[in-house]
């Protein structure tokens, strides 16, 4: 095999199969034309040195083959926006569903201390694994689509033709604070502080008996151990809402403060989950009301404790997701 043939074969190895023979034939005839031209100019037959010089000038086979390829993408610009779109939806839904599942699992088993941490850790690792697997599968599907879909189809960017500049205004709106939001937050937080600190007996199971309203308090001693931390958190939330009311829009400092407060509430929530129940209905008290028999009263107490744990777990998950979204927005979108 001549040096030219070897060179052509080396280039061919790196070319797509469907166009390989065609490009190889054209490359071979071009090199032969060039050698013939050089031999004529030099006034002597083509020799090995001439061939080597020509091939050296033509370039390494991998570089020559690369000139026939458009830029190589796993997922090209045509499909990439749609890939991101699908990825965001799938990962968001998957994460939320698995987090809720984890929350229910945690709430259903009254775990404490290290066992609770282990369950949360293995649950989060499982979610990470599932997210990575989903990412890999979606990337694989889009990589295949990239190679099999004709260029004329699947023009995702056609949506851009209908782009409306007014959407810019809509997009900037989330930074604005609606007046009622901080006011409602301040009123409800202050009301909760007042009731829980001043009249904790009001938080209970209310029932009508003998023409009057009565209640069975539900907050346990465990709850009141957390109350100083909750009071501090609520006071800071009121302060943040006062700042928002004054500024009229979210700014980086207020966003980060809100994230810090959400993190603090998650920490308190996890601590509450890992400790004894913060609500309890005494079966005896329930039985005395005549609302439930002894057995039913105990079950009702379990249901209440479970419902509160589930509610706390759901709030932790929702706040966790919100924190991730806010941090991503703050870091990557500047507000």
């Amino acid at each position: 095999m001549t040096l030219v043939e070897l060179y052509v074969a080396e280039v061919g190895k790196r070319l797509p199969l469907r166009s390989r023979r065609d490009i190889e034939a054209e490359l071979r005839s071009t090199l032969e034309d060039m050698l013939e031209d050089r031999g004529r100019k030099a006034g002597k037959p083509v020799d090995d040195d001439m061939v080597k010089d020509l091939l050296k000038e033509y370039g390494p086979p991998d570089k020559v083959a690369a000139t026939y390829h458009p830029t190589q993408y796993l997922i090209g610009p045509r499909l990439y926006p749609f890939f991101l779109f699908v990825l965001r939806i799938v990962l968001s839904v998957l994460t939320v569903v698995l987090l809720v599942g984890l929350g229910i699992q945690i709430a259903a088993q009254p775990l404490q201390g290290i066992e609770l941490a282990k369950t949360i850790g293995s649950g989060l690792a499982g979610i990470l694994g599932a997210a990575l697997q989903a990412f890999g599968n979606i990337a694989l599907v889009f990589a295949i689509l990239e190679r099999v879909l004709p260029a004329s189809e699947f023009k995702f960017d056609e949506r851009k033709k209908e782009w409306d500049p007014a959407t810019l205004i809509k997009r900037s709106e989330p930074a604005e604070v609606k007046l009622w939001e901080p006011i409602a937050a301040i009123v409800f937080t202050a009301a909760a502080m007042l009731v829980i600190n001043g009249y904790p007996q009001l938080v209970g199971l209310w029932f009508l008996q003998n023409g009057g309203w009565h209640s069975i308090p539900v907050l346990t001693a465990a709850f009141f151990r957390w109350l100083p931390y909750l009071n501090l958190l609520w006071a800071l939330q009121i302060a943040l809402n006062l700042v928002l009311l004054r500024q009229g829009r979210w700014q980086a400092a207020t966003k980060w403060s809100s994230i810090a407060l959400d993190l603090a509430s998650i920490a308190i929530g996890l601590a509450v989950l890992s400790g004894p129940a913060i609500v309890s209905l005494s079966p005896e008290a329930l039985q005395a009301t005549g609302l439930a028999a002894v057995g039913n009263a105990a079950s009702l107490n379990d249901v209440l404790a479970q419902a509160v744990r589930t509610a706390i777990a759901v709030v932790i998950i929702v706040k966790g997701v919100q924190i991730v979204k806010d941090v991503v927005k703050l870091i990557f979108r500047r507000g």
Partner: protein
Amino acid sequence: MGSTENLENMLQELRRGLIMLAVLSQLGKQQYGYALLKLLADKGLAVDQGTLYPLLRRLEGQGLLQSAWNVEGGRPRRYYVISSEGKKLLPQLKSEWDGMVAVMSRLLRS
């Protein structure tokens, strides 16, 4: 990035569209790749073969060129010629080019 590398990149960008127009303009009569390379070089536009051959295939893929294999002097060669679609497009491209040259000349003089 050095200034020489910057200059090379900018020249490459400038030449990219220009070579496409030059190729279309010279393929009213069929030519094989190497002959076209020499033709362009003789007229003052030196084009690297690594640029020309992929460009010919791309223009053919876009329907602006047609090609066919012919055996001439015992050697098979692929001949390219402008397609009917390319012929329709070429006058518009030339007109755009003339406009750009006029504008750029004014801009660079001022």
